[in-house]
């Protein structure tokens, strides 16, 4: 316990004791209050329970410190000497200790009153936006209480939607550690409502608590900024098609990918504009020199491509346009070419394979395919399951 209290040695002044006791007593059954009595003084070596508490606390300390640093250090950093801020920090830590204790205690003794207490207090906060239930026990809590409320709200707000059932099955510190580990993981990706509720609940009780501290302008500005960003993220979510991501980071990744995709589309479309010019076939055969056995007929394709260039412009426009686009993309970057093809539901295969397939399936289409392969310059694309869009495609759709 000493080690746990060490970071708060400046807070151990007796001036805060009555405040702490009030807070803890309102929450607590006798065990908790007795623990509260102990905390200001040197805590007794409670043996096993201490060890349990220490063990489970270590794992949750990261979690709690996240919220604590988020909430309190923002305030405490600005006014380190303000008593209520420090009291709030102390109270927050006390509450967490108490939570720890209650869970640790129940681990050894089954579903005891402390567990019920934590459940009850958590149950109060299932509706995350409601901080008033916490307010009533702490009429004198004032500003310190509000920060603790907010902390508790945030804490349980994320805990309760995720794993309330875990509270019913305390099975020693290991499970507690697992819970906290899982919750810590879940904390990073809370459900949208939970996160929105938690993030909304954290600032909201602050406003209601009317914190007139000098630290508030900072936090208010921060909160405003965060809210604006959240608004814009929501607007972006509506624009981008895959809007089911709840995490801000993955949502941003989606947005980035979508912008990349749109820019690539513009690129490809501007390439296709050139396809209408009809001079692409020779270029295309030229550009595909880098391939493997895809280039078998490149020499033939070159000469015949020049002849049939006019034909390509008129007939089978969409298919040749696609092919030309793919050729262009391949010239620059194979990856984007593959992406483009996949987006269209097509695939690339070497000519030898395509000829093998078509000869294996149906003979009469061979001449068509030969004529086609010259137009296509060595790339042959086959529709993945769609019907032939044009007579030239029929040879290639036996995929």
């Amino acid at each position, binding site marked *: 316990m000493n080690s746990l209290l060490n970071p708060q040695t400046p807070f151990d002044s007796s001036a805060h004791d009555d405040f702490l006791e009030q807070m803890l007593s309102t929450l607590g059954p006798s065990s908790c209050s007795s623990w509260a009595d102990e905390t200001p003084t040197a805590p007794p070596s409670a043996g096993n329970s201490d060890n349990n508490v220490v063990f489970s606390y270590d794992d949750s300390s990261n979690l709690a410190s996240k919220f604590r640093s988020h909430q309190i250090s923002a305030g405490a950093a600005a006014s380190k000497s303000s008593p209520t801020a420090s009291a709030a920090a102390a109270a927050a830590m006390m509450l967490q200790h108490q939570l720890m204790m209650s869970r640790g205690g129940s681990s050894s003794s089954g579903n005891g009153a402390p567990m019920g207490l934590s459940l009850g207090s958590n149950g109060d906060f299932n509706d995350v936006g409601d901080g008033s239930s916490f307010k009533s026990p702490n009429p004198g809590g004032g500003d310190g209480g509000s920060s603790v409320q907010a902390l508790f709200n945030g804490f349980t707000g994320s805990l309760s939607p995720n794993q309330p059932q875990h509270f019913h099955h305390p099975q020693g510190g290991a499970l507690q550690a697992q819970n906290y580990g899982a919750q810590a993981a879940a904390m990073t990706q809370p459900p949208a409502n939970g996160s929105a509720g938690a993030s909304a609940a954290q600032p909201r009780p602050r406003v209601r608590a009317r914190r007139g501290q000098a630290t508030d302008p900072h936090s208010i500005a921060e909160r405003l900024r965060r809210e604006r*960003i959240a608004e814009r993220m929501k607007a972006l979510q509506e624009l981008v098609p895959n809007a089911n991501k709840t995490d801000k980071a993955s949502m941003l990744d989606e*947005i980035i990918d979508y*912008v990349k995709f749109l820019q690539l589309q*513009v690129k490809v479309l501007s390439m296709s*504009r*050139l396809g209408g010019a009809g001079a692409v076939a020779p270029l295309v055969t030229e550009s595909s020199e880098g391939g493997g056995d895809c280039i078998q007929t490149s020499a033939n394709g070159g000469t015949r491509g020049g002849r049939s260039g006019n034909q390509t412009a008129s007939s089978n426009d*969409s298919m040749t346009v696609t092919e030309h686009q793919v050729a262009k993309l391949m010239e620059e970057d194979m990856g984007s070419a593959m992406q483009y093809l996949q987006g269209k539901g097509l695939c690339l295969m070497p000519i030898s394979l395509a000829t093998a397939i078509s000869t294996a399936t149906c003979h009469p289409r061979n001449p068509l395919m030969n004529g086609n392969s010259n137009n296509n310059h060595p790339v042959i694309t086959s529709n993945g399951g769609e019907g032939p869009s044009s007579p030239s495609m029929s040879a290639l759709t036996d995929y």
Partner: protein
Amino acid sequence: MNSQHSSSRPNSSSLKSRFTLGFLRALKRLNRQPSSSSSPPQTVSSPREMCRRYLRIRIAADASMASAVGSRRAWSRALLLKIRSRQSRSSNSSARRVSMKKKCLGEKIKKKKKLKCCKEINKLRKFVPGGEAMDACSLLDEAAHYIRCLNTQVKVMTRIADN
């Protein structure tokens, strides 16, 4: 969302028509240029020619899009600036000065904002034109508008390409 749509619908329809007009005009201008596109295949220079033509077309598309949007948006301003500076790069050194200034400003702001914003937002800056010199809020705003305009651009260009 409804209000957004109602407010953006008149804008987008006129934006679309404006972009279409500008783009078609640019295309006509490009096609009128004496190019070797219709001549018999030139083995060596054609890839480069086609590449250049493709680049010109894409620049025309971006420029017409940006001018259709006007100077109301930061990204359109940045895009137009970039295009114009690129075109005058060979002739002037002023373009270099402009790009240098932008770089310095962008770096200063980036240093400030890197501390606050997460990495993904910085990644997004690269894709939105002019995104280097914006803070997170306005960056997201610009990104939303940019996405909408890109959508319009793609729709119009697919229609043109399919005809």
